[in-house]
């Protein structure tokens, strides 16, 4: 009977080797993945008992851990609360983390591999482990100007502002309204955290959505910049080229006509491309979209960043030129050319369009984290600006930039003008659903000769009187305030 016993001995060997391999897999290889999962109380308890690193803006902490005397040893605080909530995100025991608190969690908690030596030194010296800090690219004055500009439209107004440095892609301001106070979610009183969470998630205005990077809405006439770029690149147009004008665009064999907003005739037919942009002529750009063609228009938009996740580190949605359907009919393509039909864009994406034009056609990849530091302030990483694409050739971009300056000087963008500074811009008033007020947009940059800031303002809905929405009138002053803050 010994042969079967020997076979069983081999079977036992297989069973125990299987067990040993399995625990090795879980505890050595899968451990990081498991530790990073939501709802892992062990990791949360540990992180709440450790001094988490600060998130800084211009040297001032917008998220910091202070000693606490209750169940956990440190309390996360957000001194500016709602102002930076879309950037910092929250750090909650029950609900995990979001935004920078989530994407930079390894550095902030001190678990990053680059902090390994620090951890060993802390361990040997019997020191409490500490997290590293993260410095953002945000300009605090511009951020405040953006948030206050939105708030001045009324507390119930929904909107967002994105400002970036056209030459580097560094994000200078990212504001959304309504926002929320991350302090209530970081509270050690878990019941109040839960109540606050329930209230925030039930709020129809979705205060925890970062509209600047997540709201994808029709960009309306601001998208004409993309159509203009495509036309200038593909049809070799310049600002003085003659384009179709008139009161309405008709399509062969169809009853549908595309009129201008307000019923005007754009000042004649034909008109110059410069004039078409100044008066935001639907007829001209609807016609240009069809001349350029769908594929070329989409390609141009993608060079500006459409169709890709524009930024890492915070939640963001990609912007799209066409939705489910492609192979658009001529009527649909004409609407697409003026930023309607299925075009959806985030404020950040439209700021990238303005930045690309301002930066002589070179689109820089937006980034939010400037430097990452160890607890001893040693710099671990500094973000290097990265070129995303060459959206236009420099000469054409310069011409389009010049046309945008005309829009602010003598067209629909006048509310954004800053005395003594060459400001370029484009307004947009996008139709939304039937019976719902339109979305107001403004994109711009300043100064034209050495662009320091590109900005996009989007107002999704206005508190109170909702009939009187116009991109230039609502968005222009906010954009101006943000640009002035940067140029101060």
């Amino acid at each position, binding site marked *: 009977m*010994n042969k079967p016993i020997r076979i069983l001995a081999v079977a036992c060997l297989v069973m125990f080797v299987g067990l040993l391999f399995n625990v090795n897999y879980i505890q050595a290889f*899968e451990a990081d993945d*498991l530790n990073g999962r939501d709802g892992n*109380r062990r990791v949360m308890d540990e992180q709440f008992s450790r001094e988490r690193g600060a998130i800084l803006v211009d040297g001032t902490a917008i998220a910091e851990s202070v000693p606490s005397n209750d169940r956990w040893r440190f309390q996360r605080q957000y001194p500016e609360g709602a102002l930076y909530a879309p950037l910092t995100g929250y750090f909650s025991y029950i609900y995990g983390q979001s935004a920078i608190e989530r994407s930079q969690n390894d550095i902030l908690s001190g678990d990053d591999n680059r902090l390994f030596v620090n951890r060993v030194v802390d361990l040997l010296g019997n020191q409490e482990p500490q997290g590293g800090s993260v410095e953002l690219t945000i300009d605090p004055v511009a951020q405040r100007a953006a948030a206050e500009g939105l708030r001045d439209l009324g507390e119930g107004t929904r909107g967002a502002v994105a400002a970036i440095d056209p030459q580097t892609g560094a994000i200078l301001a990212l504001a959304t309204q309504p926002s929320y106070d991350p302090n209530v979610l970081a509270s050690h009183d878990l019941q109040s955290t839960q109540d606050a969470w329930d209230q925030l998630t039930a709020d129809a205005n979705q205060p925890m959505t970062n509209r600047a990077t997540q709201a994808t809405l029709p960009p309306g006439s601001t998208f004409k910049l993309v159509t203009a770029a495509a036309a200038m690149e593909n049809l070799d147009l310049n600002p003085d080229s003659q384009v179709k004008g008139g009161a309405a665009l008709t399509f062969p064999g169809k009853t549908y006509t595309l009129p201008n907003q307000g019923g005007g005739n754009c000042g004649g037919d034909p008109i110059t491309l410069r004039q078409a942009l100044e008066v935001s002529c639907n007829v001209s750009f609807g016609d240009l979209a069809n001349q350029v063609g769908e594929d070329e228009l989409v390609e141009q938009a993608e060079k500006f960043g459409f169709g890709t996740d524009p930024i890492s580190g915070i939640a963001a949605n990609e912007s799209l030129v066409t939705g489910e359907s492609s192979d658009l009919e001529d009527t649909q393509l004409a609407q697409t050319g003026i930023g309607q039909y299925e075009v959806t864009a985030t404020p950040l994406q439209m700021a990238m369009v303005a930045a690309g034009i301002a930066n002589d056609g070179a689109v820089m990849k937006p980034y939010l984290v400037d430097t990452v530091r160890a607890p001893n302030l040693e710099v671990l990483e500094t973000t290097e600006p990265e070129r995303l694409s060459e959206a236009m050739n420099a000469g054409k971009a310069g011409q389009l930039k010049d046309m945008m300056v005309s829009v602010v000087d003598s067209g629909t963008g006048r509310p954004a003008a800053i005395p003594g500074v060459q400001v370029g811009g484009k307004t947009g008033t996008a139709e939304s659903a039937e019976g719902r007020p339109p979305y107001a947009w403004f994109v711009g940059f300043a100064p034209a000769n050495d662009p320091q800031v590109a900005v996009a303002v989007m107002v999704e809905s206005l508190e109170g009187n909702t009939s009187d929405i116009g991109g230039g009138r609502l968005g222009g002053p906010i954009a101006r305030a943000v640009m002035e803050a940067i140029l101060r």
Partner: protein
Amino acid sequence: MSDTSPLAPRKRRGAELVLTLMAVVIGVFGYIAVGLGTTGAIPTDTYRLIGGLILAAVGAHLAVRRFAPYADPVLLPLVLCLNGLGLAMIHRLDMGRQAINPDRAAFATGQVIWTFVGIIAFTAVLVLVRDHRRLQGFTYTFGLVAIGLLLLPLIPGIGQEINGARIWIRLGPFSFQPGEAAKVCLAIFFAGYLVVKRDVLALAGKRLLGIDLPRGRDLGPILLGWLISVGILVFQRDLGSSLLFFGLFVVVLFVATERPGWLVVGALLFAVGAWFGYTAFGHVRVRFEAWLDPFSNPDQNGQIISALFGLAHGGVLGRGWGLGSPELTPFSFSDFILASLGEELGLTGLMAVLLIYGLVVERGLRIALTCRDGFGKLLGIGLTMSFAIQVFIVAGGVTRLIPLTGLTAPFLAQGGSSIVMNWAIIALLLRISDQTRRPAPKTSRVDADDQTQVVKL
């Protein structure tokens, strides 16, 4: 063969004593480390624990020295080490669980008492069973007792359903899991029955893919064993025991007949049973889904997820005794004690524990291999394989290697019946080992003066 060897068989009891004291030291250091980890001080009652553990360990050692002097010297220290680690961990989990809710029951003291009871049972088996072959005479008695024990929890009044499984009986203040005792009785019954019937059952039937399948008319016993297992699954809702009993039977049948065909038949029947369990019982489906993808339903699979989080948090070196949060996992002190050990002692500690289990199995297999009588072989392999299968099912379950089924980790997990019966199993293995390694009676009677004697009458 040892009876023709010129060397006197070595008892190695001194080695056993040294290893036993090392096992005690490991348990005591575990207890001290728990104190340092949770309260920052060495527990003031440490000397009591040291005294108690030494008493129990040396008592067990003396029992072996007196009643089974030729027994394997490694088994006792191995299980004492497991028992000591288990006590330290149960004590640590008491502190952690009561820190969350002071009303929760403490198990450590009870477990210490049960350990003493276990060692008394261990000694009693060594004293009462002077030759394991005597047990063969009670084959059918043990069979009937096993069936009786299995049926006990189904009797209204004393049977108790806890967490969905009806495997407990309660008599006054004591609750007991009769399945643990049934396991030992069944091992004796299977060995006694199959050592007699092995020749008939070994007759070959059809040959398929190079394996001789058994004849159809011989399928009776295995079908009966299978039905009992399915009965346990249906009436007691206990997947683990069902699997364990069936595995035990198939393994002993295989060894008795030397026919791999029985493994094929057993595997097929197991597949049918598993499929039946999956379709018929929601809790089997839940366990299966929790195994495939626990994170698809975090609320329902919280226990296994918490165990995995604990293992991951422990990492390679562990949090240290008293410094992790194993008490967050439900049943961290019984079914999930291996996950608790993995969290605090890390991959390193958990692998050490698994290796100790592996060594116990190795010693058991060696005993079965070297045993000279068929009954002893079958009993040895049955007890050893039931131990191995149980460790595999429970350790594989909490580490998500296989679907989770409720079984206790031998010698570690909290639970009186489990620890007492496992001590009895070790005593039986030592008894067989003593019988095997003992010199044959004729050489043992040779005196130094008789060396010149050529013909012995």
